[in-house]
């Protein structure tokens, strides 16, 4: 490759640098700015002038200083060592940066994302002489106790294995030699992939399996599928981040990529310190052993924030390509959109709505479209899934915000957080009236088969009761509770129970923080059992006040604290309902 000529800075304006003498450079190529070696990316070319967004603070940089093109687009390193790492928006390892330069991030630090020294034990899965093509598993590395890292042949490559090694290697050591049409290629464990280019797969499939999250309002009422997309918009203080953390903790995905995009530093610290302590309910191993963290907090350079969501999703796609189910949490996509807006403003582009660039909707759609359940590349059939859950932080909680609107056009699940619920300390503050999930029908088959035949029906009935409650409340507000019929008062009582005993979930309570699908079904069934018996009671003339004051209510309220391995207790409470209601009926 010919060496690209270095350019000269002519203008510096915040994170935007303009350089001349850049003929030959390509769009989205990475450059090094000034002798400090700051990392930047070309985002506009005009004759020999290049506009560059710089991923680091530009103070102290001025016209006349050099710009060095690298000739390559912004890329991430993919291979063993990703899990349990914490990276900034352009995949620089924050833990190593701290070791190198101290508590504050200084500029021009350049460290490889994957350790070049660490040796991984590589176990081959293929033999010499076999034909392989892009996406095939060449071998595996036990990266953590719960994650087998499959070593993939890079996409687009095809040929015959002429040598495959076994033993301990660094990520850059060649482990396989493949004879391709173009000649012999040495393949190391590490791949390099441009972040803005989606990683290929064979075909996309419809999402049919739920991503179980352990959160009752989500799994039962507004489920997301493996390979699905969801968004959580809400004003500040409504609990977006807690929802995101809960999903990162309890989702039954194999790998979690958590992108802290322009959010609080302390929140990332929380994840960093808490995840190693928390146990994955399925494997009983620390949650950190399946998690990759991208932290580009609000005080870190704005351009790197723009890149962070791409860095995160590319890493997620890589794990998907191994045949894993991966979930990406992006908190918050609004900060990403704001980063786009800031750069766009500096480029003096014509603004669209609220000053956001005209391509905002297209960028958001393209990002979410990288999710999906797919058949991976390779000669055998493997299935991988990539789910994306994006938080949106609309100004003032106003859902007409362009970022919310652009997001709602592409995502299939909408969890609407309301501060009204948060003030009442109803958490998660997901509105049961405004939220929706378009996966409900897709997932019905699975739930019927895996949980219980009548689960979808129970859900439907509970939903009707909640909607009924909203209508009745209007009436109560106008004319008082005494004007309601007894059956309506029973609906209010049961809806209250659904809200308080089912939808309300305490993220900080050891037992309540996670509920399996089976247990969710049992709680819901218990509440609706009470409803059925209550209706019987009313028919037999039991006064509504007696039903409202029935003492088994306390047990129903505490049913959510029943441990996962004692689900037989639900039958006992159901029996207790029958007994107490029977007594009332006998008296009545």
């Amino acid at each position: 490759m010919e060496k690209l000529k270095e350019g000269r800075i002519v203008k510096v304006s915040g994170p935007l640098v303009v350089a001349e003498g850049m003929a030959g450079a390509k769009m989205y190529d990475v450059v090094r700015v000034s002798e400090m070696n700051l990392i930047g990316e070309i985002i506009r070319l005009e004759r020999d002038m290049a506009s560059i967004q710089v991923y680091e603070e530009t103070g102290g940089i001025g016209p006349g200083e050099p710009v060095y093109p690298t000739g390559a687009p912004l890329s991430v390193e993919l291979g063993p060592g990703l899990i349990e790492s914490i990276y900034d928006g352009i995949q620089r390892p924050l833990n190593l940066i701290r070791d190198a330069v101290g508590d504050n991030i200084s500029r021009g630090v350049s460290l490889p994302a994957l350790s070049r020294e660490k040796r991984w034990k590589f176990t081959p899965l293929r033999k010499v002489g076999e034909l392989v093509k892009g996406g095939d598993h060449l071998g595996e590395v036990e990266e953590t106790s719960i994650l087998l890292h499959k070593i993939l042949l890079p996409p687009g490559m095809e040929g015959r294995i002429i040598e495959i090694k076994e033993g301990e290697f660094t990520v850059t050591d060649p482990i396989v030699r493949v004879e391709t049409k173009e000649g012999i290629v040495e393949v190391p464990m590490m791949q390099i992939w441009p972040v803005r280019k989606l990683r290929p797969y064979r075909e996309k499939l419809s999402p049919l399996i739920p991503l179980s999250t352990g959160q009752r309002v989500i799994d039962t009422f507004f489920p997301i599928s493996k390979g699905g997309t969801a968004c959580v918009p809400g004003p500040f203080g409504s609990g977006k981040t807690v929802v995101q953390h809960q999903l990162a903790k309890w989702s039954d995905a194999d790998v979690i990529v958590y992108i802290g995009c322009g959010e609080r530093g302390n929140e990332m610290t929380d994840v960093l310190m808490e995840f190693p302590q928390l146990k994955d309910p399925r494997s009983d191993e620390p949650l950190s052993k399946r998690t990759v963290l991208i932290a580009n907090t609000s005080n870190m350079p704005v351009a790197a924030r723009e890149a962070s969501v791409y860095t995160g999703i590319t890493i997620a796609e890589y794990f998907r390509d191994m045949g894993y189910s991966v979930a990406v949490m992006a908190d918050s996509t609004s900060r990403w959109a704001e980063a786009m807006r800031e750069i766009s403003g500096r480029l003096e582009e014509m603004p669209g709505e609220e000053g956001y660039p005209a391509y905002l909707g297209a960028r958001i759609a393209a990002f979410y479209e990288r999710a999906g359940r797919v058949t991976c590349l390779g000669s055998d059939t493997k299935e991988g899934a990539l789910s994306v859950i994006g938080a949106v932080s609309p100004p003032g909680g106003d859902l007409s915000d362009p970022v919310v609107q652009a997001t709602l056009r592409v995502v299939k699940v909408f969890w609407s957080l309301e501060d009204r619920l948060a003030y009442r300390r109803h958490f998660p503050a997901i509105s049961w009236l405004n939220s929706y999930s378009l996966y409900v029908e897709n997932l019905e088959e699975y739930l019927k088969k895996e949980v219980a035949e009548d689960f979808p029906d129970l859900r439907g009935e509970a939903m009707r009761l909640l909607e009924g409650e909203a209508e009745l409340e209007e009436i109560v507000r106008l004319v008082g509770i005494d004007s309601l019929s007894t059956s309506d008062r029973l609906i209010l009582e049961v809806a209250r129970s659904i809200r308080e005993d089912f939808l309300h979930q305490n993220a900080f309570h050891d037992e309540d923080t996670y509920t399996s699908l089976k247990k969710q079904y049992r709680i819901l069934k218990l509440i609706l059992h009470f409803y059925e018996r209550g209706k019987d009671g009313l028919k037999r003339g039991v006064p509504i006040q007696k039903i409202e004051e029935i003492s088994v209510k306390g047990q129903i309220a505490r049913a959510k604290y029943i441990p996962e391995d004692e689900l037989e207790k639900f039958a006992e409470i159901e029996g207790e309902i029958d007994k107490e209601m029977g007594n009332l009926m006998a008296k009545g």
Partner: protein
Amino acid sequence: MQKEYRTIASIVGPLLFVEGVEGVKYGELVGVELPSGEKRRGQVLEVERDKALVQVFEGTTGIDIPETKIRFLAKGLELPLSMDLLGRVFSGLGEPKDGGPRILPERWADINGAPINPYARNYPNEFIQTGISAIDGLNTLVRGQKLPIFSGSGLPHNRLAAQIGRQAEVLGTGETFAVVFAAMGITFEEAQFFIEDFRRTGAIERAVLFINLAHEPTIERIATPRVAFTAAEYLAFAKGMHVLVIATDMTNYCEALREVAAARREIPGRRGYPGYLYTDLASIYERAGRLKGKKGSITFIPILTMPEDDKTHPIPDLTGYITEGQIILSRVLHRKKIYPPVDVLPSLSRLKDKGIGEGKTRDDHADLFNQLFAAYARGKEAQELAVILGEGALSEMDRIYFRFAEVFERRYVSQEEFENRSIEKTLDLGWELLALFPRSELKRVREVILDKYFENGVRKSKETA
């Protein structure tokens, strides 16, 4: 020797456009010498080939085109650091304002700091006792947190902030906080209130004050919070002190930022504030926190007056997205003569869960505040209902909630300006008020906790009656 230019091409608002310059860097500090000999300081906002755009902190009044001299100083704006900062009053740019000598610095530091590596942070989880029930009991503050006070014109936010500054202590150790105070565009009386209060209580000994008054140059305010944090970082992370940074009024800061953006003809975001307001505020707020392996901490309490008491205004809105909660003051409570008029329901401390419980405050704290909260919320609803339907329409239980909400505001939220309630007292008071309810109604509290504390509350409430 730096080169001196007399090549100002134009002056717009607080900005100078200087031509024919060489070797100018982005963000560089600029010295401006007026024809009168007066010296001012500025900062490079943009540089393109031989043209530089400079914002002048002290304003452009009196600057002319032919005579004014410009020097580029090859460094950023810096603050001299030493322990002598304590007990002193400075201008918004860090110049002595109390007639005292200049600081003999141990070292100089750029006021912009560098972002804290999220990996280096330590999670804030140590309880700070402010002696104010509405904060300690319900919206607990922890060391390293950033908790703003959202207020409105005419509300007693300054008194509340001064009370926090005066009373804050790390429980158990008796350790007190050093206070770094940043005032932006406040009136002389307001500033005087703080200075007097700090003097009277002796808090001045461990305080550093940076004061930019309403009549002083607006652009200087852009530097003030950064100067304050530079001092705070030094005290906290170089000297191991626990620092409380109080900044008032952030609304004035944001307006100064808007003034510069408008002069630059930038495309405005919401309500004319620049699109990067979030990023800019974050670069200040996120300097608070704790670091692994460092003793000190920076806790940040910014005060902002919400225009028209509107929480969705861009300034409180963006602040709320960066800070870890908010204390909101209510005009309704203020009218009821309740001090501090903390609007409990929408106020929130996101970090309280990590700072309370056994070994930090007391084992009943979490259950208790959940219950107080739920009861007060229901009481408020009952009050609303009573307004429409009359008190008679309330159920027996709702009437108890109604009464609870009233007593809660009067006895729990309300306290004296110089009353320093210990956390035990705050918690016991909570139980005392909950004694209004039958025990079975307290569903948010675990049985073990009820067993331990409920009877005590009932006894206390009888004594009080």
